[in-house]
């Protein structure tokens, strides 16, 4: 089975995989090097690994606080959007009403509108209301930005559920909320996994909304924190890399632990 063609293919794959991994490897190896060692050797494995940079980063910069803020936003926005989208998608997929197709088309079209278009009026309005640097204010914006995708995904999924299931439940005298809860939700777990993964990645990784709407030090997200952190330690590469290892750790660990769900979720959520 080992043909020359397969060897070339393997080589191409190994090379691409290596390229995909290089920044992560560089980040981890450099974080373990002392400043002196990095000055002489930028490529090799750390000869005398040190953990000092990690300690310095954690003492010096509020990474844990930033992560907590990001987590609050992810939970708030993802849950809010999931609830609102779930109820709406259920109505769109299973009920007849005027304006239904128009609503779905409009909501779906909003996926193509870049977030930067919305920031000017929202910023002015939030300044007026005193909503800048509040969790609630940012959560509403994030929830709004991810909702068109959620509605599209859930509607598409709900429409694949056999009509007979609805009919049977209705015969048993269930009202529509009961049907949603007892019939639709139990079979929709895969769609919700996709929804949670794609949306959490979006909110956790966002920088634009975070630096505009959460300017207060105490409310700063991880990504906004990083952009300040890296500017402050511009010349201390190993220290900066230690910060990046800490910052990427949560998503990385989740990805490795739940790789099956992530891969399936990303692949089915990709054609949004």
């Amino acid at each position: 089975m080992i043909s020359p063609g397969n060897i070339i293919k393997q080589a191409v794959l190994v090379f691409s995989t290596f390229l995909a991994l290089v920044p992560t490897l560089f980040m981890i190896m450099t974080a373990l090097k002392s400043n002196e060692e990095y000055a002489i050797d930028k490529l090799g494995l750390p000869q005398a690994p040190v953990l000092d940079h990690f300690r310095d980063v954690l003492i010096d910069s509020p990474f844990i606080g930033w992560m907590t803020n990001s987590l609050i936003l992810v939970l708030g926005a993802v849950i809010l959007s999931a609830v609102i989208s779930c109820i709406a998608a259920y109505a769109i997929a299973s009920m007849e009403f005027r304006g239904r197709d128009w609503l779905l088309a409009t909501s779906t079209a909003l996926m193509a509108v870049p977030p930067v278009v919305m920031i000017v009026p929202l910023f002015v309005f939030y300044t007026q209301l005193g909503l800048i640097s509040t969790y609630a204010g940012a959560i509403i914006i994030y929830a709004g930005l991810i909702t068109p995708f959620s509605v599209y995904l859930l509607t598409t999924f709900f429409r694949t559920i056999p009509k007979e299931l609805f009919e049977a439940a209705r015969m048993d005298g269930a009202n529509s909320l009961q049907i949603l809860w007892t019939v639709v939700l139990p079979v929709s777990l895969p769609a919700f996994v996709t929804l949670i993964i794609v949306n959490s990645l979006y909110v956790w990784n966002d920088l634009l909304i975070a630096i505009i709407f959460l300017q207060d030090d105490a409310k700063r997200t991880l990504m906004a924190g990083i952009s300040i952190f890296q500017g402050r330690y511009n010349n201390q590469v190993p220290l900066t890399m230690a910060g990046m290892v800490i910052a990427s750790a949560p998503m990385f660990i989740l990805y490795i632990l739940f790789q099956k769900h992530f891969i399936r979720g990303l692949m089915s959520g990709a054609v949004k």
Partner: protein
Amino acid sequence: MVMKSALRLQPYFYVLPLIVLLAFVFGYPIVRIFEFSFKMVRGVDGPWIGLRNYELVLSQGLFWESVLHNLQLLLAIPAMIAISLLVSILLYERLPGWKLYRIIVFIPFILAVPIIAVVMKRMFQFSGPVNEVLRWFSLDFMALDWIGSSNVALWTVMILIIWRESALGIILFLARLMSLDESILEAAKLDGATWRQRVWHIIIPQMRGVIEFFAVVSVITMLAAVFAYIFIMGGGRGGPGTATMVIELYIFNALIRTSLPGIAAAASVMLFLVSVLLIFPLFSARRRARAEEVGTQQ
């Protein structure tokens, strides 16, 4: 009677929260950018000034430079498509180890853009590891000042964008490949079709829809969703000088740094109109991508 009208209204109660949320986060801002763009906004409002904001924006060299940079980033798309196609088709062959390769090539998409931009910026420093490797291979002429030279900086950002956005392409293409009808491929193999023939004549033609979809999504990304890359790589200012300035940063600066919401709104309106134009190709590409998939599953 009451029961009946309550039932008729029921769907509207279900979609009401959705309408309120979308109206607030999308509807309200889209209406107001148009209004603001014709006003001299100081603080929260200001007098109507006709087209002055547009005249100002359009006469500014910096705005056009930003537009040009966004357009230059479009050059990354063919590279992204080629890389994604190659890697996803090879993964689809299920060679030994393909599951591990798949986990790793998805990583760029898991890592946040700001994190990866910080790492890449250090790697591409003049005294950084990239140049060290190039010198090691005696390619000294290629050891450029990747971050600090205004002729090169935007190309360096582009390398980062290609590196990360290709992961999305691989995810999309692989999802499509997994739903291909394998019997045709098997038949072609039995007929003695070579690997290249199978890829060119059987696999790629069936992926047209998803390739188009990825291309359109990427156009939107390059024109209006590269803020995080630029903000970190360009030191928050689109630097060196204005070498990596893009429209998003132009809007950000006008709104936050110079407090001119009217100017920011005029630029936002133009960006919005471009995104509206892109909605139609996006919709038709998505429809084709989905039709492709359904077509092969039957």
